[in-house]
């Protein structure tokens, strides 16, 4: 009892002592950076445990009233937060040390977190990383820089957006791409409207714990784009950047034979077919010579039968023309120009970031270009000590010439090069091969359908390949323009109250207008029969998003908690309009000048999501972190009984290096173990009302219905919707470690993930005799799992010389775990349980029969029970067995490596991206060795390797004009598609700051930048980036761009 009293008394005395010492006074000081000792404006100085605080002024000075014994907490973004206990002194100067990775703040769902507190899988790309690349569509910067992100760009049209897959393919028929968040709200415009210089960071949220707050939209991963902001108390900084350079195709197209070779090969094919029809060898050869030109309908030589009965060019035959379509359609040394001005800074209570960016870029195909002006103004203001408000606005407009260079259409530039041989002339000719002039005395394009009054002309008028079209007429006389206008505005306010509460309200509005204008010429080409056609499309996409977030953060000793309660309301509205008209007088290309209205269409439709979110984060002494998130989402895309879903995640991490028992381990600076599990949803890419059975008017089932005698028409869908449709669900598990050894000498992360996606929104094939092709319902499951590695090493880091290297790569697997039917052939793939969605399934090529030149494939030999007992070869394609090739279009390993070197004023940064183990089915190539069943098409020089007589050992079947399967789908055209690309190289020189100071300039940098400079690939003739399914579609290659630039800052 007495002891207890004494103890209480001692405690009381201690309080009295404390109180007696606690005197209010004003302390001052200067905050500097430890690195260079320069004053640090805008640093935050707070009395710990209170809301009292201020920011340092331009000179890094502060003045604050405190009690002795108070703790001053000094922080600044990118610096290590430092605490000072106020004692007797009235001056406390603090030098802040640069932050190491531990204190980094990263953007996460609905907020930011210290990197140390992250329990999930999150990767960040900062503006410094992005600057080293020239990415017209900014997310291309993620290729080769973030592990687990598989990204490719199909085709060389400038401004093309990449297709992005994060941690595999967790859907079959719904969208597989990630949700894109721009400054806190879903982005529904075109990504190429955002200029790369405006981006502060790209954060990739990969696992459940990081994406579950996006609930019904989180299953495919999330990319959060955060734009730049000004800092309080910083002088205005003006940065001018200018870049100019030239582009060329990064890789070449497939080789093609010229006219003489094409005719000789065609002769061979006709002769072989004649022999097959029973003619003697001599007759077959003679008949091939006489019928050759008749088969083409065109004669590019000055003699009636240019190929003799030996298959050679006759003496004296002279070429009248030879068209190099590739040379006419693909350009070299086209310019890329980029200028940028940004101004950023801040006063005591307000900060700003302003930027304007101009970009002009030409693509590989003639007429393909992209010109954009993008501006942004981000302003925020600290109204008083508890309220902050701000607004982010951006406006962007791009105009792009968009000739088709990625589809299978006849007027697609690359397809044209491959399918129309040099035998066919650019300009119209008469039956003798002379250029024909029109009434104005000018030559004109040959459309191959007797255009220009040449109907009935015996030769050189009617083409069996792409008749009615001429690609140059289509591109040069026609017009394909796309204009994209995007306005994004975000207004936000943040209020702190009751000491530990923060209320944040954000309102986001986005208006994206896509405007396309297409003109098909009135004289030549497909629209010539209707006097020309103008088609216009104008789609306005409006996104409105509002979030209200309440946060409570507090610490109780070593217990730190943070609680979020958030409500989100989202509406996406599309308002589309399209129309076309025909009948244009020469020189007229505006819709209003048309004579006949042709088509029209338009719809206003919207979808909404309402979400309630909660997050609880707890850590004990920054060693043990636990975080749980839950989101309840309601979506207008599903029937009223099925529209609500609940999504959640839990995650935890343990920072071993913060344990006391690790204090003596010097070499290990950071070691952290992370684990998370959660269930997420996906409802993207399935339309607005996928569960409803509605009769449609203008365009049901993708068939244009024209009015029947002026009466309106309606049809029900041929895809039967399931009214009980619900979200796709993905259960996602992540386990990872982060480490840092010898102060950054070696650091990195390793993650293992496993994603099980069920209830996939799936078009279950119906028996077509029922009158519907499929049922859109929830069925099927896939699993994606794999490893991700991200490794970095700072090899040297001195004042004059630094060198770092980094690598990131992932190994991803995909497996179908459930299908509504036993198996299903989807193009080149066999979908069944246990297979990858991407494993090729086709006949296996067995070479060419030396005795007769027939193409051979393997066929299983079965016993009487139907069991396979061996295999044989067959020349009957239809009977040949389809095999699971065990080759997939997904790489075994893909990623990137980079290195950064700095020596005094020079710096060099190099980024490679690579992909190994993927296969590609090259139908561009197979189309060029089609054995001349379609005379007049382009042909690959490999056709000269074709079998000609018994005994020839070759892999190329006999050429024939007859129906044959030699180039039909088989493993013959399945190629390994390994590649390494030197994606970005930047070599820079920075003028010495001391020299510049005198002339009032803070920075001058000269640099050289090269993109896609070098591509090493295992299969040539195509760009290695095609599509995830590993199929080709005559896509134009990406551009190799080399530019020089300068940055001036003052």
């Amino acid at each position, binding site marked *: 009892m007495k002891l207890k009293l004494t103890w209480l008394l001692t405690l009381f005395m201690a309080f009295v002592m404390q109180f007696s010492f606690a005197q209010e006074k004003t302390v001052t000081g200067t905050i500097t950076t430890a690195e260079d000792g320069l004053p640090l404006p805008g640093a935050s100085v707070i009395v710990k445990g209170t809301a009292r605080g201020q920011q340092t002024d331009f000179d890094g000075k502060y003045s604050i009233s405190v009690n002795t014994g108070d703790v001053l907490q000094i922080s600044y973004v990118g610096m290590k937060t430092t605490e000072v206990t106020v004692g007797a002194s009235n001056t406390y100067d603090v030098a802040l040390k640069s932050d190491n990775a531990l204190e980094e703040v990263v953007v996460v769902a609905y907020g930011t977190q210290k990197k140390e507190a992250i329990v999930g899988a999150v990767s960040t790309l900062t503006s410094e990383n992005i600057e080293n690349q020239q990415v017209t569509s900014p997310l291309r910067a993620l290729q080769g820089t973030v592990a687990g992100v598989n990204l490719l760009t199909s085709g060389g049209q400038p401004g093309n957006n990449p297709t992005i897959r994060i941690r595999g393919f967790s859907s079959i028929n719904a969208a597989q791409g990630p949700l894109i968040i721009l400054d806190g709200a879903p982005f529904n415009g075109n990504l190429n409207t955002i200029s790369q210089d405006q981006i502060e960071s790209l954060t990739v949220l990969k696992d459940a714990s990081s994406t579950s707050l996006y609930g019904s939209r989180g299953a495919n991963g999330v990319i959060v784009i955060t734009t730049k902001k000004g800092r309080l108390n910083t002088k205005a900084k003006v940065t001018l950047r200018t870049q100019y350079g030239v582009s060329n195709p990064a890789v070449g197209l497939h080789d093609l034979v010229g006219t003489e070779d094409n005719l000789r090969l065609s002769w061979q094919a006709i002769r072989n077919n004649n022999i097959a029809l029973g003619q003697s060898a001599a007759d077959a050869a003679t008949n091939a010579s006489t019928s050759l030109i*008749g*088969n083409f309908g065109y004669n590019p030589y000055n003699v009636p039968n240019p190929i003799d009965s030996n298959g050679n060019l006759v003496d004296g035959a002279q070429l009248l023309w030879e068209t190099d379509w590739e040379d006419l359609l693909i350009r070299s040394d086209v310019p890329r120009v980029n200028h940028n001005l940004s101004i950023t800074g801040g006063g005591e209570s307000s900060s700003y970031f302003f930027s304007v960016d101009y970009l002009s870029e030409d693509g590989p195909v003639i007429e393909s270009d992209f010109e954009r002006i993008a501006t942004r103004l981000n302003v925020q203001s600290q109204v008083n000590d508890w309220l902050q408000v701000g607004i982010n606005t951006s406006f962007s407009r791009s105009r792009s010439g968009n000739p088709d260079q990625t589809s299978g259409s006849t007027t697609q530039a690359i397809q044209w090069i491959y399918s129309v041989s040099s035998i066919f002339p650019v300009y119209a000719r008469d039956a003798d091969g002379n250029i024909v002039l029109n009434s104005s005395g000018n030559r004109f394009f040959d*459309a191959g359908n*007797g*255009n220009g009054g040449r*109907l*009935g002309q015996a030769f050189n008028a*009617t083409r*069996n390949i792409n008749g*009615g079209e001429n690609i140059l007429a289509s591109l040069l006389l026609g017009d394909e323009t796309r204009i994209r206008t995007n306005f994004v505005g975000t207004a936000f306010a943040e209020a702190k109250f009751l000491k530990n*509460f923060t*209320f944040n309200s954000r309102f986001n509005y986005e208006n994206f207008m896509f405007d396309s204008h297409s003109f098909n010429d009135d004289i030549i080409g497909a629209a010539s*029969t*209707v006097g020309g*056609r103008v088609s216009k499309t104008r789609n306005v996409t409006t996104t409105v998003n509002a979030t*209200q977030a*309440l946060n409570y953060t507090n610490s109780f000793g070593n217990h730190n908690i943070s609680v979020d309660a*958030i*409500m989100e*309301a989202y509406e996406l509205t599309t308002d589309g309009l399209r129309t*076309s008209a025909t009948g244009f007088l020469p020189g007229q290309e505006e819709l209003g000048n048309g004579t006949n209205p*042709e*088509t029209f269409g338009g719809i*206003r*439709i*919207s979808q*909404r999501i*309402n979400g*309630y979110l909660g997050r609880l984060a707890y850590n004990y002494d920054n060693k043990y972190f636990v975080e749980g998130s839950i989101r309840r989402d*309601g979506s207008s895309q599903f029937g009223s009984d099925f529209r609500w879903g609940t999504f959640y995640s839990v995650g935890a991490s343990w920072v071993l290096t913060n344990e006391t028992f690790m204090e003596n381990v010097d070499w290990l600076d950071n070691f952290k173990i992370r684990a998370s599990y959660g269930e997420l949803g996906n409802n993207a890419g399935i339309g607005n*009302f996928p569960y409803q059975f*509605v*009769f449609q008017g203008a365009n*049901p089932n993708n*068939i*244009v*219905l*024209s*009015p*029947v005698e002026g*009466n*309106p*028409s*309606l*049809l029900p869908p*041929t895809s*039967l919707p*399931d009214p009980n449709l619900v979200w796709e669900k993905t259960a996602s598990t992540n386990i990872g470690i982060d480490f840092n050894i010898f102060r950054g000498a070696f650091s990195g992360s390793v993650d293992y993930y496993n994603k099980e996606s069920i209830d996939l929104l799936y078009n*279950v094939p*119906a*028996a*077509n*005799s*029922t*009158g*519907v092709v499929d*049922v859109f*319902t929830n069925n099927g499951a896939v699993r994606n799992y794999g490893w991700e590695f991200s490794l970095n090493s700072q090899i040297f880091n001195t004042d004059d010389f630094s060198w770092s290297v980094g690598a990131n790569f992932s190994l991803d697997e995909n497996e179908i775990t459930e299908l509504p*039917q036993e198996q299903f052939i989807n193009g080149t793939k066999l979908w069944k349980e246990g297979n990858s969605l991407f494993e090729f399934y086709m006949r296996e090529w067995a070479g060419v029969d030396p005795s007769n030149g027939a193409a051979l494939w393997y066929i299983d030999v079965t016993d009487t029970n139907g069991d396979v007992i061996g295999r044989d070869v067959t020349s009957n394609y*239809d009977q040949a067995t389809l095999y699971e090739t065990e080759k997939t279009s997904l790489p075994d390993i893909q990623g990137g490596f980079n290195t950064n070197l700095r020596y005094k004023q020079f710096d060099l940064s190099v980024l490679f991206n690579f992909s190994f183990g993927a296969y590609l089915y090259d139908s561009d190539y197979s189309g060029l060795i089609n054995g001349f069943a379609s005379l007049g098409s382009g042909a690959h020089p490999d056709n000269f390797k074709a079998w000609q007589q018994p005994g020839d050992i070759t892999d190329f079947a006999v050429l024939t004009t007859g129906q044959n399967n030699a180039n039909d789908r088989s493993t013959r055209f399945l190629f390994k598609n390994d590649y390494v690309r030197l994606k970005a190289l930047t070599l820079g020189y920075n003028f010495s700051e001391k020299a510049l100071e005198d002339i009032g300039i803070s920075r001058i940098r000269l640099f050289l930048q090269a993109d896609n400079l070098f591509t090493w690939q295992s299969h040539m003739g195509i760009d290695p980036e095609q599509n995830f399914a590993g199929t080709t579609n005559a896509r134009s290659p990406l551009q190799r761009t080399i530019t020089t630039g300068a940055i001036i800052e003052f």
Partner: protein
Amino acid sequence: MKNNLNFRKHLGYGYLALFVVMLSLSSCSNDFLDEPQNTNGLTEDVVFNSRQITESFVSGILGNYKGQYANVDTGGLYSLYFARVIKGNDLIQAQNWYTFDYGHENREPNFRRTNFNWDFNYQNVNYANILIQGVSESGALSDDEKREFIATGKFFRAFHHFQLVLDFAPNYNNNSSLERIPFYDQRVNLETVTGKAPSPLSEVMDLILLDLNEAIVDLPETRIGKSYVNKAVANGVLARVLSVTKDDWQGLSDAARAAYGGDAASAVVSSNWGAGFRDMQDQEWMWALFQNGSSETNFFFGQAAAMMDHFVLSYQATYVNPNFVDLFSSTDVRNTFVDFYGVSASVPWREYVSSKFAFAFDSDIVLMRKSEMVLLDAEAQYQLGNIPAAQNLLFTLQSERDPNAVISGNTGAALFEEILLERRKELYGETGVEWFDAKRYNRAIVRDAVHRIPLTVPVDSPLFFLKIPQNEIDANPNYTTDINIE
């Protein structure tokens, strides 16, 4: 004391703010989610709630006939017919659209002809069943309106099942117990999407005839226009069906007469010969696809005119067998053949082109004409033994087309051959009577040597029908790949 007051004031605002926040977080949101409406189209209860909208569903079915379903040669109803046209000996197709039909090789389970003919017809069957069910259950339509729409639905159901019998089974009379295709008399729902089992052809044919006969009773004589169906069109289809079953020649004659009106002489008068075969207002045309000339211009549709007309910019793909040309007298208005290119020396099959069809975007597409019905009547009379009646009907048409025509003295097989030849001469390029007759009468198609692809299709060859699509075999448990073993 002062401190205390401040604290209370502070606390008051704070809790008020918290209260407002919580209120905003929990506001009811079902109204918010219910507000967006599906503006894509009309729900079923709306469609069958008025005559006008139900009619537009019928228009949709007919609009789909002239649409472009997949490719030029697998477009709409016209492409089903032209594929049959090009399988014969009379016309020659360049290497262009329909070339695989021309080569008789477009019949494998994964080929587009096979898939299109199957899907297109069965989708129309399902539309017909939706129409019948929707109209039956409608509370807004009168009984008379219901009878008319149900009859329309039964017509479509019978018409498309008949096309399926023609395309996916051997000649009906060779083995009518063969099970190739199912007959659907109910619309599909989530439980029935795996499909029905094929029925014996005789059962399918009985249901076709039942539907047609019921449709004939309830369909009116009048109609909105010639794109739509009426009693006469249903009789015309019945006549075609009976020409395949070949078991009711009197019924065939009755149906044909009901279709052409009974007076052959006035029925065969046509304004379209020599005028490009493009105007459905011609009294001789019974059923056609209307083209208004502006809504169709987005595609080069694949009908006969777009293939056969070499005198305007189109596909210019179809030529005429010179031996067929030789069968026409010079005074026959149907002799539309010219040597346009002058290249017959090096490419003999390109010698003749026809000007029967003039291609323009407003060229209507013919589906049924009275002259075909007159010739079916002649055939029925021949089969019934009324030779003079057959000869007279034949001459009625011949003399209308050719002022120098003389009445046939043929009897027996020669008269029969003359009737079938007259069908080819009258109907070339339209619905494929050459193939149709070869199939139903078990005749071979023997191509002349001049053809680009000379071949012979033997009597009752599997080339007369398409294989069952692989998609159907995969999804319908009632089929196995054995169905395609020949």
